[in-house]
């Protein structure tokens, strides 16, 4: 066990530090987040710069645009870049979810052609799984893909698609056979998002933002050559993507602790420093244990991956704990602030209204990428091996499964 770098890792870290110092924007007290469009442009520019320097997708093979290094190197990169004010996780869904799917299922030619463009963020990718009536029950999806000649014709609707409005490609899961049981009738593809018949509509979130989209498919086309895996093999492929998603997210999942610590170190409540308040201290200790535990858990998982393991369902715990904690910390801070806590003006509220914004955004994190309840199911079934519930949708054709949902 060694929580410090090996000499080779230390060298890599030093190199990264030097490059970042020369190229990355330092964090300042007054950083205000720009418009969504601006942030997208900045992210594109940053990813290109990182790619050109050879630090994009550090754990990918060099021939696909990566650095050919290990997950541990990627962690080092993340630890260092975190100290700067750069949008390093902006395209994590493409690179973290779609990348591995392409790596696993695409043809060599597709990989050589598309992956480096994904790594440099020249092409932006999105993931098209969820649907209005297929949320926690992803496999309940209904978007149809029907084969006509050597093309698949796509009709239906996806939802909660991050970055769809900017995307060049998407990895999509479709129902190709409603007459077999639900987990068997799905197939995965990658799709050109810029073609006719693909219509992206932003969803306005409860916090007023629009990070997610609905995507409507109206006779959109996918050549069979863009099929990822076997016809009917979509569920297995999707599980692979979701597994990688949890790994990709686990490192960057906000848990709210660093902001809380920062606040406690600077805030006065009724003329007394918050850091001297025993109640605040108790909460700080409680959440630090979770924060430190999550960080160390991620590192344990990465150690396992670096040793050749596959990312396990354990990753679900990071999202489960972090998302709830993030919401509760923000709410706690507001309670501490009292009446003024409700003021969400970024120029007036602490840390540019971070806590007010988090109170309104955090509920989404508890839902996106699998609800708390789905995470607990995953841990119970996939990690602990507990039995599934009796299944009302088992062994019957998809089209015959009871559903009161619309659409």
């Amino acid at each position, binding site marked *: 066990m060694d929580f410090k770098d090996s000499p080779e890792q230390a060298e890599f870290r030093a190199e990264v530090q030097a490059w970042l110092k020369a190229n990355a924007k330092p964090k300042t007290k007054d950083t205000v987040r720009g418009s969504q469009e601006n942030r997208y442009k900045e992210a594109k520019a940053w990813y290109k710069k990182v790619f050109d320097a050879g630090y994009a997708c550090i754990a990918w093979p060099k021939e696909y645009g990566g650095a050919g290094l290990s997950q541990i190197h990627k962690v080092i990169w993340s630890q260092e870049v975190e100290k700067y004010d750069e949008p390093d996780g902006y395209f994590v869904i493409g690179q973290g979810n779609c990348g591995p799917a392409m790596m696993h299922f695409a043809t060599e030619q597709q990989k050589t052609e598309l992956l480096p463009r994904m790594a440099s963020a020249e092409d932006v990718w999105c993931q098209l799984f*969820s649907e*209005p*009536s297929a*949320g*926690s*029950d992803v496999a*309940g999806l209904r978007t149809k893909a029907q084969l006509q000649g050597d093309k698949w014709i796509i009709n239906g609707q996806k*939802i*909660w698609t991050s970055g769809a409005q900017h995307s060049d490609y998407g990895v999509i899961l479709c129902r190709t056979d409603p007459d077999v049981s639900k987990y068997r009738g799905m197939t995965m593809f990658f799709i050109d998002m810029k073609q006719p018949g693909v219509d992206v509509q932003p*969803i*306005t*979130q*409860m*916090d*007023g933002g629009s990070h997610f989209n609905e995507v409507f498919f109206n006779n959109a086309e996918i050549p069979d050559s863009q099929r990822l895996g076997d016809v009917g093999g979509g569920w297995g492929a999707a599980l692979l993507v979701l597994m990688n998603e949890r790994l990709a997210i686990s490192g960057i999942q906000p848990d709210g602790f660093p902001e809380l610590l920062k606040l406690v170190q600077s*805030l*006065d*409540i*009724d*003329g007394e420093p918050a850091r001297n308040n025993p*109640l605040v201290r108790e909460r700080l200790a409680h959440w630090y244990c979770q924060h430190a535990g999550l960080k160390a858990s991620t590192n344990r998982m990465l150690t396992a991956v670096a040793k050749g393991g596959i990312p396990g369902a354990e990753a679900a715990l990071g999202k489960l704990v972090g998302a709830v904690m993030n*919401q509760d910390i923000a*709410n706690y801070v*507001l*309670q*501490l*602030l*009292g*009446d*003024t*806590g*409700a*003021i*969400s*003006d970024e120029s*007036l509220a602490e840390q540019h209204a971070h806590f*007010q914004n988090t*109170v*309104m955004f955090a*509920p*989404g994190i*508890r*839902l*996106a990428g699998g*609800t*708390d*309840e789905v995470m*607990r*199911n995953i841990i119970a079934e996939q990690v602990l091996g507990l039995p599934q*519930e009796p*299944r*009302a*949708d088992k062994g019957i054709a998809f089209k015959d*499964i*009871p*559903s*009161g*949902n619309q659409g």
Partner: protein
Amino acid sequence: MNFDFSEDQKFIQEQARNFLSAECTTARVRKTLEGEQDYDQALWAQIVELGWPATAISEDQGGLGLGYLELCVIAEEMGRALAPVPFIASVYLATEAIKLAAGKAQQDAWLPQLAVGEWIGCLASVEQAGAFNPEALKCSVTDGKLTGTKTAVLHGAIADKAIVVATEGGKPGLYLVELSQAAVSRKALKCLDPTQPLAELVFDQADAEKLAGDIDAIAAISKIYDRAAVLLSFEQIGGCDAALNMAKEYTSARYAFGRQVASFQAIKHKLADMFVAKELARSNAYYGAWALSVNADELPLSAATARVSAIDAYYQCSKENIQAHGGMGFTWEFDCHLYYRRAQALSLTLGGSPYWKELLVERLLNANAA
């Protein structure tokens, strides 16, 4: 011993609910939420017409001469309906401040006006982060002129008059201030629940009339806060009820894995926990209502208890209602966030949970030491 509202009170509540469910739909609440208006003036006019602001004002002061229990059941319905009107600011805060701390002549002049909604009042106490602290007041009055800044004033941007807490010669007092005068500038503040909007009020030598009752100002404020705490707790349990109902209806109608979402134990137990939190809060609110209605010695402790319970319950019910809705709960389109925003607003007005927990314990230990 009777731990329930009377049939008459329940009738008033039913009338209020019928009126608000017809008139104050969430579609209408959204007009205020989305900034079309600062508050719902038409709805406010209807509410004034119904006499609700006059509920707990005595008949000889132009009110209906009903009591706090009647105001509590109306509060529950206001909370359930998320009414985007200055009822809290004007009725629970300004009116009660005047009832408690104004002189007889002032009461006779102002209460009949408040009863018929001639003007809208608000309470300006807070100056800084943390709960209101009378020890640290910076607003001060000299020769009838008020100077200083108040923040997080509920409905401060649209109220006609404010009850302002300020010192005069180092001694705290309550002052009525006309907000339309030139010496007052005010700014609406962006806040979590635009249907219960906050404002900053800056006073620069503004005319201020001291409330002339013979109660100590600190004691008066404590009493105003306690009364409002009970009334707010009813708004909060109304909100809890609505949020739990939403969760129940949505999860019963929606299917996943071939069955109703509400048939999964994870959801059932989540809703059961919401129910438990809500019922404990309701019971504590009832006790507070009784204490308020007879001005019992138990009021300070029971008000703090009602408030802490209600803060916890509404946070839980409103956030888990979002969760029970899955992704749709996170959309602007669904109403879940209206309750969640209101839960935040109501929990922070009058100071948050840590402040009230400390008050509660102080009162509990005093009660049990005596």
